[in-house]
């Protein structure tokens, strides 16, 4: 596999059962992820953006193995992870790590930082004793913390430092692919920038590949090489960053971009807000799942679900306006 693809997800689906229906006859499912495919390339960041509840975090959970998908495959360097048996899969999982959103609750308040960062080495039998200490020290230095921080507890750190510790924990086993699940949305804006730069810096030096999940378009724009826009459990548009931000094609992507506030008060634009709320993922609208809120919806949108079609080099859109019905 030398096409530079580290992770390939094909047709991932994850349904959560949400109790039974009104009379207890049929089960009701929340279709959190409903057929998602993408590629994560070597040394690149794939930004996954969408509103809250669109299933973007669930995609991260599926990749990291915290949830099992109902359907679909995950390939790591061409190898199907789902098909591996227990021990092989564990070894494979080491290559895919996650940094969670809330730096506070991602750390055990009763666990010393040295152990919180070093335990992946021990449970995976990669190092023992003094070797663990040495590698934790090196890893902390890598994320901008000092060696004496090893002997402290999480509550002694600021939010930004805690997120650095979480990043150190995720990276210490030397993963190839890191899922960053909104790693900065719980932080102050000034600290956000530091963490984003750290993440980019680590990528430049070590060649990590990232899946960066966020609801914040400006953050996504800052870190991503490619961007995928998700709506109600599906990716509706994906393109290289520059192309997506200069020429968004899907009406939903355009609406998202129009909602980003501009720091220029003279360029006051009318806010093109999306009408209505995100529909419940229990009752996904038929046809194009975006049509009830789409200002450009055609008749066909109500009945036929659009498929992804190329609209430029490496630019894909699932929308009837661009011929997605063919």
């Amino acid at each position, binding site marked *: 596999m030398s096409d530079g693809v580290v992770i390939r997800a094909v047709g991932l689906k994850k349904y959560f059962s949400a109790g039974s229906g009104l009379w207890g006859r049929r089960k009701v499912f929340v279709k959190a992820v409903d057929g998602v495919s993408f590629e994560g390339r070597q040394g690149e960041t794939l930004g996954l953006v969408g509103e809250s509840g669109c299933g973007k975090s669930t995609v991260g959970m599926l990749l990291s*193995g*915290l949830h099992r998908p109902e359907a679909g495959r995950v390939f790591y360097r061409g190898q199907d992870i789902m098909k591996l048996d227990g021990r092989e899969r564990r070894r494979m999982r080491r290559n895919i790590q996650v940094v969670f959103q809330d730096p506070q609750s991602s750390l055990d308040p009763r666990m010393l930082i040295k152990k919180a960062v070093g*335990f992946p080495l021990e449970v995976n039998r990669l190092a023992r004793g003094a070797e663990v200490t040495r590698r934790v020290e090196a890893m902390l230095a890598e994320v901008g913390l000092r060696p004496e921080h090893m*002997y402290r507890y999480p509550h002694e750190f600021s939010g930004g430092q805690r997120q650095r510790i979480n990043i150190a924990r995720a990276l210490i086993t030397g993963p190839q692919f890191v899922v960053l699940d909104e790693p900065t949305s719980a932080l102050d804006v000034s600290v956000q920038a530091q963490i984003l730069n750290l993440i980019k810096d680590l990528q430049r030096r070590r060649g990590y590949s990232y899946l960066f999940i966020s609801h914040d378009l400006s953050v996504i724009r800052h870190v991503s090489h490619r961007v995928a826009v998700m709506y109600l459990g599906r990716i509706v548009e994906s393109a290289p960053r520059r192309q997506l931000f200069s020429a968004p094609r899907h009406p939903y992507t355009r609406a998202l971009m129009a909602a980003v506030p501009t720091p220029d008060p003279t360029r006051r634009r009318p806010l093109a807000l999306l009408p209505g709320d995100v529909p419940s993922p229990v009752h996904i609208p038929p046809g194009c799942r975006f049509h009830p809120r789409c200002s450009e919806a055609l008749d066909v949108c109500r009945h036929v679900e659009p498929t992804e079609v190329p609209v430029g080099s490496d630019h894909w859109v699932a929308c009837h306006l661009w011929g997605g019905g063919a």
Partner: protein
Amino acid sequence: MPSSTPRSGIDPMEWWRRFQEEHAWQLREFVFTLGLLRRNPSAVAGSCIIAAMVFLALAAPWIAPHDPIRISLSERLSSPSWHHLFGTDELGRDIFSRVLFGARISLRIGLLVVGIAGGLGTVLGAVAGYVGGKLDDAIMRCLDIVLSFPSLVLAMALAAALGPSLRNAIMAVAFVMIPKFARLVRGEALAVREKPFIAAAKVSGAGHGWIILHHVIPNCLSSVIVLGTLVVGETILIASSLSFIGLGAQPPTPEWGAMISVGRKFLMDQWWYATFPGCFILVTVIGFNIFGDALRDVLDPRIRR
């Protein structure tokens, strides 16, 4: 030339410095907790009683004026005097000495029972709460059966079935106490297992056993300590009750409950026989209970800061 090569042995000063560094937070927290306890009157009273009991128990061989099981029929049933501070029993044994040695037995029972029940209960509760599902149901329903009996009645039945002896009484009481710890820890484990750091541990390759041992149990420990303190008091009471009805300590062991049991027959004419062991049970149990209550208040994070 003095070289700075590290010595192979462990230097105690170096070890202590290291310990302080690694556990600085816990030490600070511990000192802070002590400060809060000192300002809490019932904690002070409780800990004084417990400390006094522990001292009496440990020092019994030295401060007891007589051998607790030496029979002296010429002095039988003599009333309290300077020679026999609490008087003597029907075989002329010194009740003060017997009460002091009884403190050893009662405290040992309390600690053993809390150790056994606390250990087993914590593990069962942590596994039930963390794993959940059918295993949780199986463990907790079994413990509910135990819990559905009044603890004294069940302990009596078990002790009677196992045969009257101090060891069997300890096992019976420990068994009865397991569900208390298990339920408490299960509740906390349910909350802990949803925390993102558990997900992080899973992604990093930690197994369920590792997570229970290093995440779930440490996070439940402070509540277990509080409950343990309260259970010591209850245990002493139940163990004394078992001895009182003849299912615990056997003669000539100077156990408080057993002493009251015999002394009851002489209560009308020799009030001191049953009264002094009874007072010691009362004071010890109250000491552990009020200290446990105070500890719970002090460790409660909502009150703490």
